[in-house]
């Protein structure tokens, strides 16, 4: 079975955000670039499915600028078989642009025969949660987002997706688009052997022209600083004062 995992290179979650001189994008100075954390769960699940089947191929694909191959190599080191880099100039993109470019690639043989198309439930940079359902819609596939548990039997998959106060149990017929949540599995670390092997695995670079944007970013700014707070006191003795300020000043209890 062919599976495709769509991954994104993002700024590390420990990044302290600085706005670039254009006033619209992240200043890349000093930023560590990582594989989007939720994509790790997607890749891990694809690898486990391949391993339990004892056959199949896992292709990772990522859209972005010249730095993206580092993250693709990382995915190859974790166990993906080959990688495709949809190369752009690295400028900003909106979710529909990305979804359209990915869908075009996913419609092309041999990727059009993939049975499972994986994503992370969201990217930790723009947090849009859009590309997976958009790709599903553009390909006419069913899609389940926020997948926290999965059972696969032949062409049927039973998935649990987290919703407010519970979980929906969803049954889908393959081919399907799935977006993984944390908790789906425990992702592996790359082994030294995997890192060495990754250097020899195929990584195909495909320059693309992005479709027209649908959103225009006007500005990026840091949130207004919160007004400085105050320490109401030390230890259990300060509890009455805490309760008083919450009730009388903040009026929240």
């Amino acid at each position, binding site marked *: 079975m062919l599976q495709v995992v769509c991954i994104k290179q993002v700024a590390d979650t420990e990044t302290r955000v600085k706005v670039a001189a254009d006033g619209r994008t992240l200043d890349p100075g000093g930023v560590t670039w990582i594989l989007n954390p939720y994509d790790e769960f997607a890749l891990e699940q694809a690898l486990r499915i391949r391993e339990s089947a004892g056959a199949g191929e896992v292709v990772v694909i990522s859209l972005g600028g010249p730095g993206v191959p580092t993250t693709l190599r990382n995915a190859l080191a974790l166990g993906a078989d080959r990688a495709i880099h949809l190369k752009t100039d690295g400028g900003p993109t909106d979710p529909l642009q990305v979804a359209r470019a990915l869908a075009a690639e996913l419609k092309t043989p041999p990727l059009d025969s993939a049975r499972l198309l994986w994503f992370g439930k969201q990217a930790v940079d723009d947090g849009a949660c859009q590309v997976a359902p958009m790709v599903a819609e553009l390909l006419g596939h069913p899609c389940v987002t926020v997948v926290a548990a999965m059972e696969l039997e032949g062409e049927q998959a039973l998935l649990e997706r987290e919703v407010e*106060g519970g979980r929906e149990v969803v049954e889908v017929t393959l081919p399907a688009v799935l977006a993984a949540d944390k908790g789906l599995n425990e992702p592996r670390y790359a082994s030294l052997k995997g890192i060495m092997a990754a250097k020899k695995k195929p990584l195909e670079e495909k320059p693309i022209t992005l479709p027209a944007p649908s959103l225009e970013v006007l500005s990026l700014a840091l949130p207004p600083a919160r007004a400085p707070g105050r320490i109401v006191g030390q230890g259990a003795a300060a509890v009455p004062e805490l309760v008083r300020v919450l009730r009388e000043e903040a009026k929240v209890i």
Partner: protein
Amino acid sequence: MAILVFVEQRNGQVRSVAREALGEAVRLAASLGGPVVGVCAAASDPGLARLGEAGASEILLAAHPAFHRYEPAGYAQAVAAAVERVKPSVVLFPASSMGRDLAPRVAARLGVGLAADCTALAVEDGRVVATRPVYAGKAFQRVAFTTAPALVSLRPKMFAPAPAQNGGTPPVTPLAVDYDSATARSTVRELKTTSAGKADLTEAEIIVSGGRGLQGPEHFDLIESLAEALGATVGASRAVVDAGWRPHEDQVGQTGKTVSPKLYVAVAISGAVQHLAGMSSSRCIVAINKDPEAPIFKVADFGLVGDAFEVVPALIEAVKALNRA
């Protein structure tokens, strides 16, 4: 031009996020003009006429037996049909579990842009400008649309419902949707309830979160008791979730949930950057930590320096006394 609002229902109940979206639609209509029209996909009318007081002047109801539960393809078809009929300038969705799944499908179907999880909307020079958090709230982006209609999903708890209006009873108009559920390749088989009666973190008014300073999962009963006294939902830091003390559903932060309650109580949480990102849009933040240098105190409105094992039991008793009063 009209403003269209997706009216989310679950189990035949209109959810509060629908009223929040209608409230914002009323505010937008003051600048953009046009009626506020709702569209609801359901098995039968979940009492839509009551949404007149929330600001709707008409509701389109796409009724189908399969719409008893969330049916992504069918719901997307219903909203697209409503867009076709109403020709709105803006379509609002809640950024709930359902809205986050549905809105991108509708956007792809219509070939238009979607600004997701927005925390504020404005009309500037006649066009809609959406403010949305990026890097889990460490920064905010303002975006405009180059396509129409403008699709927007709204973060729960950030938008006030419209004050109850004497707007009368809006007509509930059937919306014909030619949907064959037999062709659906995905079906919701079951809805398992995990936290009966408790608000989800993303929609909670009050959250009490615990961190690694609690020393072990067995001490989370302190957090549970405080949450119960306050009528709050329990949250957790990443350290606690990664250690397996709490399920991932409870995690607040950049790789968990971003929350905006009116009161957030952080107990024994030091305040890693990624946690602060997820909760700093809370209206009032209380930190209880024995380390006076903990970064959590930098974002807290009210800090209490002390040992959680001493402070929390006293706080529980004080809140209970208040509840009895």
